[in-house]
Structure formats: C-alpha cells, structure tokens
C-alpha cells in the first residue's frame, strides 16, 4: 500500500465522515432562560429522595488507588456529588435507618508511605460531609470488589469489617457509641453477611459458614462453624450474593444459584437451581463480571449477569442480564447490555431500574480495529470510561447512559 493510496483512503474517509456530520450535528436550541439576578454563590445540599432514585459508583479507581472516590448520580445519570474515600476503597454502606453513608477508609501519613490509619467514616446524607470517624485497627482487607467486606447488623448499630494481614479476623464497631468494640479471630472464614438481628455469617474456605453472634453491646457472644453446606472446590459460591427477606441468593462458578436462609439461630440451605438450560450451558453461557447479582425484594426477582465465552475468564464483562423468578426459579426475561458490564444493582422501587456498571469504549468500531491492529490490546489502556447504564428492570428497555465517573476504573454500582 503506497503512501499515496493511504492518503487517498484517508481523504475518502474524511469525505464519508463529512457526510455523516451533516446529518448528525446536534441542532442548537437557543431558547432564552430567565433567572433572578444578581446571583449569590452557595453550596448545594441533596434533596430528600426516596430510596432507589439515585445511585453510587465507587471502587478502587485504578490506576489511582490512592485517591478513592464515590460518585453520586441521579437516576437520569447526572452527577449529584462525590466523596473522597482514601486508599484502595472497597465498599460504601448506605444506612437508611441511621440516615448516614458509611465507608471504611485507609490513609497513609504520606500518601503511599508513612503511618497507616484505618477509619470508619460516616457521611451526612444531605451535605455529604463527614459526620464522625472511628479509628479501627489498620488491618482491613482490600479486595478488587466486594460489597460485603464491610457489613452492618440489621438495626445498623454494629459494623463488621473484614481483616486480612494475612491473618483473618473481623473488627466489630459500634456506630452508636462511635467506638471500636473488638477484633475476633476468624481463621479460614471471611466476609460477613448479615442475618437475624445481630448475626453475621462468614463464608469459610471449606464450604461451611461461620456464625458470629453479637451481644447487646456488640461483644461477640458466640462463634460457631456450620457443617459444609456447599462444594468450595467444584462449584464455589461467588462472593457477590443478593438478599431477599432473610434469604441470601448466591451465584456459583458453574452458573447455579444457591439460596440460604439466615436467622440469629442458624443458616439453612434452601433452594438450588441452574441459571442455564443444558443447551445454554453447552453453547458457552456462564457467569460474568464482579458484582454480578441483584434482586428486587417486592417482586422476588433475581438478576444475573451472564456472558458467552471461556469459563475460566469468568470476570470478563457481561453481555446480558437474565431475570429469574425466585419462586418458580424460571427465567422470565433477557436484557441485552449496551456496554461491557462489570457489576449490576436493582433499585427497590415499585418500578425497579436495573443499574449496570459498565466499561464504555467511546470509540467507533473502526477506530477500535485500527488501534487493535497497530498496537494490540495495549492500545486501549486508558481509553475507556466508567459509566452506568440504566434499564427498566421490568421491560428491559434501556433508559439512559450516565455521565462519566472520571479518573479510573470503578467496579461497583449501588442504588441509593
């Protein structure tokens, strides 16, 4: 291919693009607006909103782990605010009863060196300012994404924080007295899932659970290991379950669903069903992404992020969300994703919305091919955007693609 012919090709492309412009240029609608004058600067506060009308995007923000951020959006995908959440942020806990947002954060006195401090920080839900902080042992576990590394009791009084140093322990925090309560050893088990009034169920590496029950003051009252309840080798639970009532619905590596009902007394294995038909399984459908499940309480629907591809690349982005009725365990809906989906959530509203945390590549397919041909996959490093797509969770209709969460890879979305 000579230089001249390449130039010719390029010019031709330009002409094509020019034609496109004529038809695609957005018209400018310049209707004058009126507003009071003179103006005065002020600081916004968030209006009261019913749960499910807003959502958070958050996570470790690669490639900039130091400056964790959580971005707040309204359900139309517009940014409402932001909080700064420190080094390698993992999860954000909206505590509706306390009217707080809680985040466990890590700071070093010199950014990435010096003294480490781990703190529980509670944020005001209207000003997004820190209300108080509680210093805890500097041991919290940092995972790529996991919404249950930190959990609260049902009454939102006590917090359980997963530690990994690599010794496995759990830190208990009292949000009412604003104090660290105690650290309990949890060898072989981690990730507290709330159950009953004052219980946490940790998943153990052997397929059992560890039941940790707190007393009225938050001190650990009992620690018990259950028998083995799932196959941790052949078909392990993924660490991204969803809860309906007192039942946790886990997906498994082999694309099954395992349900467990929890109380202050016990955890009970309940239903088990496959996300896939045999033919879907044989045609390569499997689980996808990180936060790959969601549930809608009122309708009892379970949402699973799936993809077609190699089983061992199970963290690759999802292509579809499949909707199941947890009563009949039948699939009732397939929703095709607009972008590459990493995590999902569903609002608990009467007309629920499906929120998908996506990797959006803002380039044409042609450009993607050009980059891939000349530089391979490396060429895409940094050329992607963290966005959320909002769908009608009942009809599956796509509603909107959100504005960008700038500066990095955020893997989580949570309705608020």
């Amino acid at each position, binding site marked *: 291919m000579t230089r001249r012919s390449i130039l010719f090709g390029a010019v031709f492309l330009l002409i094509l693009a020019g034609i496109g412009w004529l038809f695609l240029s957005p018209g400018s609608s310049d209707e004058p607006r009126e507003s009071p004058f*003179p103006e005065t600067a002020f600081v916004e506060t968030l209006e009261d909103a019913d749960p499910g009308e807003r959502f958070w995007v958050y996570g470790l923000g690669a490639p900039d782990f130091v400056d964790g951020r959580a971005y707040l959006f309204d359900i139309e995908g517009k940014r409402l605010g*932001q909080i*700064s959440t420190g080094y390698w942020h993992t999860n954000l806990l909206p505590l509706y009863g306390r009217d707080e947002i809680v985040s466990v954060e890590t700071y070093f006195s010199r950014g990435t060196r010096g003294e480490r401090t781990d703190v529980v920080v509670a944020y005001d839900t209207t000003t997004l300012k820190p209300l108080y902080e509680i210093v805890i042992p500097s041991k919290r576990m940092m995972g790529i994404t996991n919404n249950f590394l930190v959990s609260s009791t049902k009454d939102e009084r006590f917090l359980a924080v997963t530690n990994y140093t690599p010794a496995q322990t759990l830190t208990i925090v009292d949000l009412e007295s604003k104090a660290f309560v105690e650290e309990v050893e949890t060898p072989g088990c981690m990730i507290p899932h709330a159950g009953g009034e004052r219980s946490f169920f940790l998943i153990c590496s052997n397929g059992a659970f560890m039941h940790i029950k707190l007393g009225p003051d938050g001190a650990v009252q009992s620690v018990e290991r259950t028998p083995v309840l799932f196959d941790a080798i052949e078909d392990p639970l993924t660490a991204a379950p969803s809860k309906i009532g007192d039942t946790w619905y886990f997906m498994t590596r082999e694309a099954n669903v395992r349900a467990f009902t929890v109380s202050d007394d016990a955890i009970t294995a309940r239903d088990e069903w496959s996300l896939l038909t045999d033919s879907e399984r044989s045609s390569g459908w499997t689980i996808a992404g990180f936060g790959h499940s969601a549930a809608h309480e009122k309708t009892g629907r379970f949402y699973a992020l799936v993809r077609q591809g190699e089983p061992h690349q199970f963290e690759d982005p999802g292509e579809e969300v499949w909707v199941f009725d947890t009563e009949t365990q039948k699939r009732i809906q397939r929703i095709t994703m607009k972008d590459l989906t990493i995590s999902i959530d569903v609002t608990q509203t009467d007309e629920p919305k499906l929120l998908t945390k996506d990797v959006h590549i803002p380039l044409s397919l042609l450009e993607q091919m050009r980059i891939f041909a000349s530089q391979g996959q490396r060429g895409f490093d940094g050329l992607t955007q963290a966005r959320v797509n909002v769908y009608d969770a009942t009809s599956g209709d796509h509603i909107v693609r959100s504005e960008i969460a700038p500066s990095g890879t955020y893997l989580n979305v949570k309705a608020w």
Partner: protein
Amino acid sequence: MLSLDEAIEQLARRRARTSSRRGFIGKLGAVLVGAALVPLIPVRRSAAFAQDTSKTLKESGDPLDCNYWRHCAIDGYLCGCCGGSATSCPPGTVVSDITWIGTCHNPTDGKDYVISYNDCCGLSDCGACPCNTNKDDTPIYRPQTSNNLNWCAGSQADVPYHCSLSVVIAVAE
C-alpha cells in the same frame, strides 16, 4: 508502523494550520491542559459587594460548554458537571473565600456583566468538564489576575480544589 497513522497525523497537522482562528486543535489543546482557577481583575472577598436589587437575567446556550458566555474567563472544572451549577458548589464542598471578578458579554441581551469566579474546595477534583480560557490571564507573579495557581488557598477547606463557578453579580457599567 508509519503509514496510516502518519498520514492521518499529517492531515491533522495541516488541518490545524488552516483551520479558523478558534481552531479545532487549538480548542482541543486548551481543553486538555487540565484544571486551575480563575483570572481577572481585583481580588474580591466574599460579600464585599452589596447585592440588593432583584432583577432578571436572560441567557441562552449550553452552560456546560466552555464557550458559554459567563465562563469567558474560567479555568477549571465546571461545577455544573459535578453536582453543582454555575452558581452553586456541589455538596460537601465550601465556596472559596477569595474570588476574582471578570467581565463577560451576554449575547442574549447584549450587556456586559461582572462575573465572580469562586471555586469550590474540600474534595478531590471533580474531573469533569475542564475549561481553560486565558483571556487577560497574567503571569503567576501577578497572582490577582493569573489563573495558573490554586485559588482554594486560604479557603476554609484549604487547597483541595474541586470545581469552579461563574456567578453573575452585577451589570458592568
């Protein structure tokens, strides 16, 4: 690996040369540089101006565009892209104590207005909608009229810069 890329580069370069004064590449460059703050004439402490009249301002266009009339001397992230607006800081931030005022022409009513370019401080940078207009910007050693320094300095939240406002405070006489 020359060829297509290089050819395109050549075209881009030629286009940059021959494009209109407010050219595509020029704009691009202006946008890419990142954030900063705000220029223009005398330093103004908050509430130093009395604002007693209650009139109406007419304006049109996209307030999230860098070329929107009241951003004529802004340099930073537009708060309107960050959970605020041209006049309001996003939740969790504070309005900077010090501000610089500029004069911008409102094409809708044909008048010139005095704009107060406060910043919002106390969070990581917003990161969205960077704008950088250097009109009447002076070197950094003339700080009152330079946009190349962090103007959250001295605010209640200290230097952490989040985004920039464009508040219309008076008609320019």
